[in-house]
């Protein structure tokens, strides 16, 4: 996207493929909607069962793909184009992708859960294959050649025997096919793939590298003003008074907007808004509703449980524990984390003639549209969310909240408003990955095998719904009240065939901060506890950690990733800890494995660590990872994701923790919430197992799940000390070393 100023029209014509103008259907104020209408009177389909919802074939021989899933910096724009170009037999540069515009794209669900390719991409594949089949059929009728004797190549249907063919553009009159997607359609034989499975250069990278890309933070619309929010100093504080005079001297300040506890300043220029937000005088009530940070885990343990989710039950774990030759017991915890986007959240909203347009980097524009409608009292049809890529979000960060702020302010000032969060707004007010506490017990038989496994996860209730918008909450406008931490019970159950297993998730009525999903929600924390505790069992049994896992693993694809990672890491079979523990810097290796959600992507990893006994500092010089995510669309893109997951998660495990006092977050910048920097970034060695004839599965999240346990296991291997509390700070490392 490189339009310097965005207009609805320029967004629509992005890619130059689809000949539609944009107009409002219905002119009277009550019936206004955002149903886009083509110049010839047709409405752009968005229903998920229509081919036209997903693609349009242009008169210029180009195709436009309409994707409800959006590129959050992971490269799926390119992958979607690859999938569609492959099915349509078009060169990649003749496919453009429009993403996440609620008026133009089907609702394919939020962009989370590593489902973009697996679900979104497959839907686009089916739409494209359905379109292709119809084009071939039409060509057959026009050319008088049987379907079987035709092929598609380079945007045209041609007789296999040679002779003139028909370009797609000649087979569709107006870009539309008016056809239902056939989910059972024959898709292309992977043996004939020319684009899928090949490393293709990403569409967006040249513009990003040349400074020509339009991020959400770059969007400017005519007449727009700038706002900054002024959040309460304590999460639950009430606004008592505002001294508007305190910002009167700042040129260009237009308005102080106050609604309930929502407070913001609006100015002609951005810097004036920044200054005014810092200078605005306001008094707030005292609020100290958070637990004390150093009593966090007692607080979690004491939180009311609203229900138990039994996520797996085999045999009788309690009885088997009683019979076991040996039992082990441990508790693991994973701190509260922030998403940590490098660019704070931003949105632009405009309310005009009863219609709200919101430019947003939201990962879930279709859901956000409904949230904004509920908050403003508009009908959902009167709200349009237009996706513009922002800074990477790694889950549900503050993008949606900034959109809520912008919508509220657009209504308050009657002009388009851009809201840019500050660094402190993002660190302080993005929803947080909730604290996770896990208690585990295992019983080993006389041979050291796991005979019984019983685990209890203390995690907030709720799933992956809509996270309540901060603006709606502060302003007392309608909003959701349920927590939406993500599907955090996933991977609490095990991928191993132990005879007696019971895994229970105690769902908590509350958690200190508004929760949401951070990348690999629950799967990361749960796999950490499972795979580290399993390593404790292996050590107790005196077994090699790889051999110990393979004993209880029946799944050939799981076995394959473990064997592959062992191969690239040069894994030496021996029990942990290592025999040699002399010297100040100790070295170790640790293994970890996940089958994502127990039904898709397989990942195995090996961490190498160095532990400095004097300082307690951990370094991870190298990390090896092997992954099978089924059919790979863009191998280079998958490798980029593996690097990213490993590096981000090493950062989470070694240093990250939201700090807070009784009122709110105190880690409000990068000095107080440090993340990994270049000198400490590990080398990442990756191995991909491509299975072109299998379904494509997600690659954006799964590999984060294996990182924490691999590091914990490697530290144990190096030192004999077990780290069970993320982050593994030098203080915790030193304490663990003292205890061994």
């Amino acid at each position, binding site marked *: 996207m490189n339009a310097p100023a965005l207009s609805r029209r320029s967004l629509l014509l992005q890619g130059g493929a689809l000949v539609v103008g944009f107009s409002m259907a219905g002119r009277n104020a009550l019936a206004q909607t955002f149903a886009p209408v083509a110049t010839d009177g047709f409405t752009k389909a968005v229903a998920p069962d229509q081919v036209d919802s997903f693609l349009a074939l242009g008169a210029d021989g180009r195709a436009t793909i309409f994707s409800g899933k959006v590129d959050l910096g992971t*490269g799926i724009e390119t992958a979607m184009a690859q999938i569609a170009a492959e099915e349509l037999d078009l060169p990649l540069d003749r496919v453009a992708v429009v993403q996440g515009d609620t008026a133009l794209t089907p609702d394919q669900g939020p962009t989370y859960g590593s489902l973009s390719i697996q679900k979104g991409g497959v839907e686009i594949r089916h739409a494209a294959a359905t379109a292709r089949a119809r084009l071939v059929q039409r060509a057959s009728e026009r050319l008088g050649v049987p379907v079987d004797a035709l092929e598609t190549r380079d945007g045209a249907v041609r007789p296999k025997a040679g002779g003139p063919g028909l370009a797609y553009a000649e087979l569709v009159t107006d870009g539309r096919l008016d056809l239902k997607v056939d989910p059972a359609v024959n898709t292309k034989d992977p043996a004939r793939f020319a684009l899928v499975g090949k490393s293709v250069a990403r569409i967006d990278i040249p513009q990003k*590298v040349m400074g020509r890309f339009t991020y959400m933070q770059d969007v400017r619309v005519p007449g727009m003003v*700038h706002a900054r929010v002024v959040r309460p100093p304590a999460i639950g504080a009430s606004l008592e008074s505002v001294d508007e005079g305190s910002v009167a001297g*700042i040129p260009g300040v237009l308005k102080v907007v106050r609604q309930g506890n929502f407070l913001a300043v609006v100015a002609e220029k951005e810097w004036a808004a920044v200054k005014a937000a810092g200078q605005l005088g306001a008094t707030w009530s005292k609020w100290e509703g958070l637990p004390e940070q150093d009593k966090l885990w007692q607080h979690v343990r004491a939180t009311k449980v609203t229900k138990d989710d039994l996520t797996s039950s085999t045999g009788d774990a309690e009885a088997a524990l009683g019979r076991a030759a040996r039992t082990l017991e441990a508790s693991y915890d994973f701190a509260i984390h922030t998403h940590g986007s490098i660019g704070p959240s931003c949105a632009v909203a405009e309310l005009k003639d009863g219609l709200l347009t919101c430019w947003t980097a939201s990962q879930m524009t279709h859901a956000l549209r409904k949230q904004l409608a509920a908050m403003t009292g508009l009908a959902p049809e009167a709200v349009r969310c237009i996706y513009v890529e922002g800074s990477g979000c790694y889950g549900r960060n503050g993008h949606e909240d900034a959109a809520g702020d912008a919508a509220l302010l657009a209504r308050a000032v009657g002009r388009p408003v851009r809201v840019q969060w500050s660094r402190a707004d993002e660190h302080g007010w993005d929803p947080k990955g909730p604290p996770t506490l896990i208690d585990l017990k295992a019983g080993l038989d006389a041979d050291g095998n796991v005979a019984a496994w019983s685990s209890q996860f203390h995690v907030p209730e709720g799933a992956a719904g809509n996270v309540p918008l901060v603006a709606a909450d502060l302003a007392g406008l309608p909003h959701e009240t349920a927590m939406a931490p993500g599907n955090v019970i996933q991977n609490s159950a095990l991928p191993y065939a132990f005879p007696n297993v019971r895994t229970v998730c105690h769902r908590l009525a509350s958690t200190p901060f508004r929760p949401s999903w951070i990348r690999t929600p629950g799967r990361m924390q749960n796999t950490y506890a499972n795979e580290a505790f399993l390593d404790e069992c292996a050590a107790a049994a005196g077994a090699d950690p790889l051999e110990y896992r393979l004993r209880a693993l029946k799944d050939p694809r799981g076995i394959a990733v473990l064997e592959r990672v062992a191969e690239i890491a040069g894994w030496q079979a021996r029990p942990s800890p290592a025999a040699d523990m002399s010297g100040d810097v100790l070295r170790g290796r640790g293994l970890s494995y996940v089958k994502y959600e127990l039904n898709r992507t397989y990942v195995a990893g090996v961490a190498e660590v160095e532990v400095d006994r004097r300082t307690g500092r951990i370094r991870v010089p190298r990390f090896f990872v092997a992954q099978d995510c089924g059919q790979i669309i863009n191998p280079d893109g998958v490798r*980029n994701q593996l690097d990213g997951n490993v590096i981000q998660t090493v950062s989470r495990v070694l240093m990250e923790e939201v700090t807070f006092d009784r009122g709110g977050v105190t880690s409000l910048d990068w000095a107080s919430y440090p993340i990994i920097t270049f000198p400490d*970034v590990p080398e990442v060695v990756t191995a991909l197992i491509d299975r072109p004839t299998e379904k494509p599965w997600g690659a954006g999240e799964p590999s984060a799940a294996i990182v924490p346990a691999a590091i914990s296991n490697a530290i144990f291997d190096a030192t004999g000390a077990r780290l069970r509390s993320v982050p593994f700070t030098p203080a915790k490392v030193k304490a663990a070393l003292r205890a061994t």
Partner: protein
Amino acid sequence: MAQQMSLDVNGRAARVSVDDPDTPLLYVLRDDLGLHGPRFGCGLGQCGSCTVHVDGQAVRSCITPVSGLKPGAKIVTLEGLGTPEMPHPVQAAFIAEQAAQCGYCINGMIMQSAALLNETPKPDEAAIRQALAQNLCRCGTHLRIVRAVQRAAGTL
């Protein structure tokens, strides 16, 4: 009282009007001049995403008051470093290495690296990592970024 200023940005004279001489250069570049290269990340000098060159030096524009610039200072942003037809070697290397995920940090990475290569044409990997130690990336693109700088330096 708004103050008129003349800046040399990407080889062109630009006239801007600022209400506050303390306005950080970042806001002038982004809001007054409509540039998209330098990015707002923290406003605190902590992340590097706002980096530009001032007289060839990598500078964090979020903490550089526009009035503090020397008269005639030459400001270069990512847009002015190279053009799509003639990318700077560091830009070409970032494309060749596919060194971006969301890309939000990439402005800072390229501007910092280009300044490094001006001073030290053949840095080794450790020197590159050290030179970029104050530039944050959350997507975990670090390894590709380092390879891209090595490629630009001809040391890959």
